[in-house]
């Protein structure tokens, strides 16, 4: 069952609950990174969107765990699909998969491996090739409007991803069709693979760009769950909504934060211990 009347609860108490969930997701991400061994994994861009995942799966999304394909559910698609180290733990938090399964995310032939589309466990779309999902979001939002589903479509994009040209085709069309059921979230962690987004291919002024495309813009601290709740609770009418979440790539682990090489990297046992100590030391 989906309770469509449920509003987003913007409160300090709720923010604290979601911050606790974020810590659990970060610890899960470390377990997954360690389990990936020498393959390495996408820690940096997963850690930057942990709070976004917590707030989405812990509060914002109207999902139906008993009936995952309920057509009136909200849709969430991570277009920057390499954020699996925070997305998969969030799916476990939401109850789509068992906690034990998260370590199998690189298992040969596994159901979590390789950005699959598995809607029965909350994987709505096979993302991965950057820039495509926002167009799919426009299609889903158009369809939801026509069918009066009363739901929302959420698309998470990276900041580097915004270099992709077809994204701007999609943004133009989202505003043209007045899709106020479409919400884009930008994980503005300031780094793409080769370094600072402003030196690789500058995207600022980002807010102005979205405003000029006739989107409603919210800006927030992407690691402050209260700030995120407030941003998600905005419900502009007549235009699509973008939340530009200012974040830190690798957030939460000092030696990973803001380091481009941790976009995709191996986590050693030593580093794992150090990261866990840093993260759990944060519990008061």
């Amino acid at each position, binding site marked *: 069952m989906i309770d469509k009347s449920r509003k987003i609860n913007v409160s300090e108490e709720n923010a604290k609950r979601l911050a606790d969930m974020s810590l659990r997701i970060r610890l899960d991400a470390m377990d997954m990174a360690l389990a990936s061994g020498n393959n390495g994994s996408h820690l940096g861009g997963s850690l930057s969107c942990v709070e976004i995942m917590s707030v989405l799966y812990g509060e914002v999304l109207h999902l139906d765990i008993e009936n995952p394909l309920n057509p009136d559910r909200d849709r969430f698609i991570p277009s920057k699909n390499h954020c699996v180290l925070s997305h998969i733990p969030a799916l476990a938090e939401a109850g789509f998969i068992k906690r034990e399964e998260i370590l199998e995310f690189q298992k040969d032939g596994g159901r979590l491996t390789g950005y699959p589309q598995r809607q029965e466990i909350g994987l709505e779309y096979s993302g991965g090739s950057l820039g495509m999902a926002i167009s799919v979001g426009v*299609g889903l939002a158009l369809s939801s409007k026509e069918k009066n589903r009363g739901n929302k479509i959420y698309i998470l994009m990276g900041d580097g991803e915004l270099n992709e040209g077809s994204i701007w085709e999609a943004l133009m*069309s989202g505003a043209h069709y007045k899709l106020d059921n479409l919400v884009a979230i930008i994980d503005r962690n300031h780094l793409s693979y080769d370094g600072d987004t402003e030196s690789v291919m500058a995207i600022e002024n980002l807010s102005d760009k979205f405003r000029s495309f006739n989107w409603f813009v919210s800006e927030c601290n992407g690691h402050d769950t209260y700030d995120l709740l407030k941003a998600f609770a905005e419900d502009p009418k007549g235009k699509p909504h973008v939340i530009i979440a200012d974040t830190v790539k690798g957030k939460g682990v000092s030696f990973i934060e803001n380091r481009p090489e941790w976009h995709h990297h191996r986590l050693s046992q030593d580093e794992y211990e150090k990261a866990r100590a840093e993260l759990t030391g944060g519990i008061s």
Partner: protein
Amino acid sequence: MIKVTPVNIKTWSRLGQRGSVFSIAMPEIAAEHDNLKLLTADLALLSGMDRFKAAYPDKLINVGIAEQNMIGIAAGLAMDGDMVFATTYASFIAVRSLEHVRQHLSHLKLNVKIIGSAAGVVAAKSGVSHWATEDIAFTRALPNLKVFSPADSFEAIKVTQYAASVDDPIYIRLSGGLNCPVVYKEDYDFVPGKLKCLKNTELHSGKMNVVIIATGLMVSRSLAAAEIIENSEGSNIKCSVFNMHTIKPIDKDGLDEIFSDYDLIVSVEEHNVIGGMGSAVAEYKATKANAPRQVFIGFNDTFLPAGSQAFVLDEAGLSPEKIAGRIMVECND
């Protein structure tokens, strides 16, 4: 219900494949399928969608000149239960949008049909940017995607109706412009996936038995070429013609029969000889021992100068006279 009459067949020919699909077939399909959506990239007028738009304004979505976004939007609509037809020039839908097609139609198997119009060199005067002479190669290489290439306007209607009757992702390649030559003068059974024999000459042990396998606009030209060959003085060649309207999945049973019956296979297509319909035939033929030799007639891995459609096709060796001439030379070799 679309009525098949001599007058209508003439009208469809005048409208061409594109006009017939969007002004004749599509409104009928919309009447039968509540979940239909038709997407265009700023080519509603050119494609003859006026009638569709008047009858079903909510089912027509014009995404502007943004072909990649069009395929992504089509995917989103299909993920929520719609059957989507999306169209623009063949080159823009099958080449510019190719990765979206790969991801959404091929990989995710969404219920999206893409219709590429003006395939081959219909836009002969616009030049290479508007031609599609590699689209079969690109789409044929994508798993799960079926590829159709109708011979005339009537068959284009039938292919479109078939596409609407299944959930599969499909690419329909529309060739010929306005006044598309008539191949089918009366109603016939369209069988998807099966080669259609249009000219079946009696096999003759004392003669060279040639079979032309053609697709799209080249079917009518191949029929004309076969007449030229058989009527030429002292001709020792018998020439059958098959229409390969379904390029993928390929008709293996039909080809098996052809391989055992004929001395020479000739593939004729308005497409590069690399990767096209002829290549599809050859790939299968290569698995068969003692299959006959094949001649590939098409664009010879080159672009050509722009000009009238007749000029460009003649330069490419795709006029009936040049097709016939080439076959007669190959038979004498």
